[in-house]
């Protein structure tokens, strides 16, 4: 029983990273209709920026803050410089753009920092806590706390502030929002910035465990895509729940079904996606359609 609970806890801890990345995917999709396949690479860039700052002698927490802000700025620049020129109804072009950004960012990271994995220091220390036989590392607890706090801040900003209302208005219908005096491009840039900041936290939390490398977020991105499908990409709550479910499923399935451990446990995520698509195509919390321009 203790082993099972340990696996559940480990799965939830991993699922938090998927949830954060899936939330970033959902925010961008709602605003611009783009499934941002480069979201994982943007998280990798953030982790490398934080790492580079620590190499330059900057303490880890200021380095993380710099990386999050830099990611937000990068997200806004990518939206303003490229994405805004593609009409939301051109799904093919948006998909191509996502792949292009993924490959481009991956190449840039590889050129600047190389492809060898690097050790990323945990900002939460290296102690281990025991709760009745359950083992939790400081990295797990700190990671959950950081991602949870980030998502909480995002939730408050999105749902409880004037800023959030205007952001939601533009995300739901950019054209309609323009007739209310809202400058859609500016607010959608803010949406991209927020998404990239959340994605950056996911990357920084994943890096100490996964090891910093250009391919570090490839599997988490796949998991996040699965989470977005399961929870419903149109629902911010749904993508978070989807991320946690994927974390649980892959941890439990990988442990108890022989031959499907390690990265092979991704098969459970996609089995779950197929099951949800067959039963509720919009996802467990999703609407049948997303209103956008």
């Amino acid at each position, binding site marked *: 029983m203790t082993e099972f609970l340990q696996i559940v806890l480990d799965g939830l801890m991993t699922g938090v990273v998927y949830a954060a990345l899936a939330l970033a995917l959902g925010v961008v999709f709602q605003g611009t209709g783009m499934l941002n396949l480069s979201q994982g690479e943007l998280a990798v860039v953030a982790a490398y920026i934080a790492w580079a700052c620590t190499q330059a002698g900057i303490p880890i927490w200021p380095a993380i803050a710099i990386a999050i802000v830099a990611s937000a700025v990068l997200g806004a620049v990518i939206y303003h410089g490229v994405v805004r020129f593609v009409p939301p109804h051109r799904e093919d072009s948006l998909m191509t753009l996502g792949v292009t950004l993924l490959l481009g960012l991956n190449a840039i990271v590889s050129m600047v920092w190389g492809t060898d994995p690097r050790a990323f220091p945990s900002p939460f220390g290296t102690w281990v806590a025991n709760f009745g036989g359950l083992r939790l590392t400081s990295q797990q607890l700190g990671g959950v706390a950081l991602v949870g706090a980030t998502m909480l801040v995002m939730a408050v900003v999105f749902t409880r*502030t*004037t*800023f959030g*209302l*205007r952001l*939601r*208005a533009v995300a*739901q*219908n950019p*054209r*309609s*929002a*323009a*007739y*209310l*005096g*809202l*400058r*859609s491009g*500016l*607010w959608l840039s*803010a949406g991209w910035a927020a998404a990239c900041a959340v994605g950056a936290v996911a990357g920084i939390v994943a890096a100490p465990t996964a090891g910093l490398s250009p391919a570090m977020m490839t599997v988490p991105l796949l998991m996040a895509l699965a989470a977005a499908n399961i929870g419903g990409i149109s629902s911010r709550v749904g993508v978070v729940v989807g991320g946690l479910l994927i974390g649980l499923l892959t941890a439990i399935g990988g442990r108890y079904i022989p031959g499907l451990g390690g990265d092979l446990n991704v098969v459970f995520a996609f089995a779950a996606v197929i099951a949800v698509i067959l039963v509720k195509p919009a996802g467990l919390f999703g*609407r049948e359609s997303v*209103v956008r321009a």
Partner: protein
Amino acid sequence: MSAAAARETQAVPAPIVRLNEVGISFRGVRALDGISFDVPQGGVTAVIGPNGAGKTTLFNCISGIYRHEGEIELAGSPIRHLRAHQRASAGIARTFQTPTLLDDEDVFANVLVGTHAWTTTGFTGVLIGTPRARREEREARDVAWHHLTAVGLASLADRPAGALAHADRRRVEIARALAAQPRILMLDEPAAGLSGTESDELIELVREQGQATGMTSLLVEHDVALVMRTASWIAVLDAGKLLAVGEPRAVRENPAVIAAYLGADAEVVA
């Protein structure tokens, strides 16, 4: 009707909107051609004409959806160079034939977001919640409640807009437009889908708002009887051209308007 002729047939001191040779083509089809007339300050001005006359296209030009030829002035200032969000901030609000609400948001949020047009706090101020931003937000909430109550939907404030019936959606859209405190409110077929009583109440609400604030209403409407009861100034379009402009009585008796649009109905509404 030429621009000069149109100006001669109307005597409008200090118009709120002045259209000067406004035109637009879509793939070679002339949707609007040299439209020139003035919209008087205050009251209700109607734009009427048969289907395909260019009424909604004209609204789209004024609100900045389409880039158009010619010039449009708002209270004496040219606005051709302004984009849609800038025109909204300059005081132009509009509704659509099919209400375009934020279906995921509740009714109050839909009206509240309309207040953005007059709030002055910038993007950063709203993000960090400066004292000025908080003060404006309180004012905005009061304004939104006022207009939501005025359209009779205060009891539905918490309901998702996507769950409303058509008539209520129309009311929410108008409350949102009024919450923008516009100088000119453009209503595109506001009576569509409403009963006679409902549309009369809605138009009366808009008229009262206009009298209280000096707001001008510009109305596209197929219900000729409603137009004749409501409007103090009428422009008639036909096939993208201005057919007539003036007071309701003059327009109603205009032979060209009768031939192109009013027909036998002219007797009914006279």
